[in-house]
């Protein structure tokens, strides 16, 4: 057999593909790290740029000048902003995020206590969101029923238009008071007992998560259904679960997965409101308190952690999208 020109070309591209993939992966990590750096910078600057002086808030209006100067010195606020940043930035790498100005607790401690609650809400929302969005999108896409599609569009639009805090209040009234399925407020216990307190916030999060995810998945599914390879699969006789997974869902999921990873960021922002309404001891509520009192170390620590979580999830989302569908690039 003679060597066809296409085969020679193929042999060359193979190694190049591998190299390109490695470069792509490394590039994505480098980018995540650089974004993380800027997250740290912005977290540091943001609270300092906002008006209000933590020392004066803490000591009250009648504080003497001497007391103010003394406290400012104690908190290290009399040094230059560069020196403060250096202190904060080097601290991050030794796991030291500073001390709260007021409670005297270390920020790592605050985050360690309250972050799990927030992550649990977000984790439950993601899980519930996936469990609901996939079957809904799949059903509507496969039914090809005009009425089903119309209802789907209408419901998702309405659900998206409702603000989260409104849904939360209605949910609290209905499930918490009328049906008594969920506690109206408070939080106790460790996993799994705490699920009793967390399920309603997760459901409320899904009020916007499920419409967004199912809309995107539905439209990718419709595109996939028109693809030639689906027809090839049908003709080849691929059936049942294998067909639904390999020929419909998997080629359609990448945009939804990437979107879900971005939605984590949106939800983290939303937990601030959610935790306040449901009186949950999550990190979002800590953030509000800290902002009120201009507790610089706590605010910059929490904002930085939020940023890192978003960076981490978008990296995971991109990676997962790529693993599901090799047409996706990690650039």
């Amino acid at each position, binding site marked *: *057999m003679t*060597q*066809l*020109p*296409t*085969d020679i*070309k*193929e*042999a060359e*591209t*193979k190694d190049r*593909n591998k190299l390109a993939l490695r470069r792509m992966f490394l590039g994505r990590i480098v980018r995540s790290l650089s974004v993380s750096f800027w997250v740290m910078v912005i977290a540091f600057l943001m609270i300092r740029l906002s008006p209000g002086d933590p020392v004066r808030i803490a000591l009250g209006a009648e504080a003497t000048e001497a007391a103010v100067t003394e406290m400012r010195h104690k908190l290290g606020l009399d040094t230059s902003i560069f020196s403060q940043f250096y202190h904060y930035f080097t601290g991050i790498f030794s796991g030291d995020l500073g001390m709260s100005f007021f409670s005297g607790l270390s920020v790592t401690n605050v985050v360690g206590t309250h972050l799990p609650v927030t992550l649990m809400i977000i984790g439950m929302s993601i899980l519930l969101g996936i469990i609901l969005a996939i079957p809904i999108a799949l059903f509507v896409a496969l039914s090809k029923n005009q009425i089903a599609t119309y209802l789907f569009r209408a419901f998702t639009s309405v659900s998206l238009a409702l603000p989260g805090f409104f849904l939360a209040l209605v949910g609290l009234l209905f499930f918490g008071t009328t049906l008594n399925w969920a506690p109206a407020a408070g939080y106790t216990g460790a996993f799994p007992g705490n699920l009793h307190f967390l399920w309603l916030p997760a459901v409320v999060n899904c009020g916007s998560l499920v419409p967004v995810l199912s809309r995107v998945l539905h439209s990718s599914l419709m595109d996939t259904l028109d*693809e*030639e*390879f689906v*027809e*090839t*699969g*049908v*003709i*080849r*006789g*691929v*059936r049942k679960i*294998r067909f639904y997974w*390999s*020929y419909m869902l*998997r*080629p359609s999921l990448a945009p939804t997965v990437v979107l879900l990873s971005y939605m984590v960021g949106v939800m983290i922002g939303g937990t601030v409101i959610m935790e306040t309404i449901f009186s949950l001891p999550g990190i979002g509520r800590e953030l509000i308190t800290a902002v009120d009192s201009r507790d610089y170390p706590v605010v910059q620590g929490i904002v930085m952690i939020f940023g890192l979580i978003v960076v981490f999830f978008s990296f995971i989302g991109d990676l997962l999208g790529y693993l*599901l*569908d*090799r*047409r996706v690039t990690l650039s």
Partner: protein
Amino acid sequence: MTNTTKKLLQVTDLQIGIPHPRRETLVIVNKASFDVGYGEMVGIVGESGSGKTMVCRSMIGTLERRGAKVLAGQVLFEDQDLAHASETTWKKLRGKAIGYVPQSALAGPNPVLTIGAQLSEALKKSDTKGTIAEQSKALLELVKIRRIDTVMKQYPNQLSGGMRQRVMIACALASNPKLLIADEPTTGLDVTVQAQIMVLLKEIRNEFGTAIILISHDLALIDDVCDRVVVMHAGATVEVGSVSEMTTPRHPYTVALNQSRIDIAVPGSELVTILGNAPSVGQWPTGCRFAGRCTIVQSDCTSGDHPPLFGDRGAHQSACLHADLLKGR
């Protein structure tokens, strides 16, 4: 070829339409008739919208997915009428006796599955011997792919268009089909790769006696590799005959197709094109659907039904009422 020999596939007066809940059913194929013998390579030519792809879909059971259905006629594959087969019947038939090579080499293979995974899918339905890995390798060897172990682990986007189409042919051959349908299999491939794919298809026919239906709008391509030609125009078969018979066409549309071939064009002169456009689906005129573009149109051409194929099945057939007028042209 006489008409007494048993044919592999017999399409008779096939009529395909797209039903609409409120409006009338839109007929897209009407009066399509042709045969495919065992081990025969048949080319179907026609412009876009002439119904060639729809006719093929009736043989692989994908009309319904596109909202179309067979309204009348027969598609007899061996002894089974595929035209009216139910979805349950299709579930049993698919991936067995009829193989299919899709139009677009680039979009044909599933992008999320490795080549090996797709081959094993195709092999699961076949009852040939050997492990799936061995058979997959044999298939890739058959379609002349080298570095088989690497290719098996690769995803389609890592392969060139030509390679992807070879893989698709390998998948279609997995169940050792009696009939292979290739719907414009070289769309989007460059000319040298096109030629390689055509040679490959012909070799497969010669080696395994697989009958092949090759759909194309390129008459020159079909002349090169096929035994017989089916010419379609506006949803109907207008001429059927062997490649040699087609050198003296008996339908004005085939004449026009022949004249507009690029390979016979005189350099420097303008390309010959066919007058007008094919009538759109749903706007077919009464009488012969080619009449509006015909150079030898007569008064009786524009009334009544579209003419059927005249002449004996298996012989040179034409749907022209006045084929005699073409003699000496």
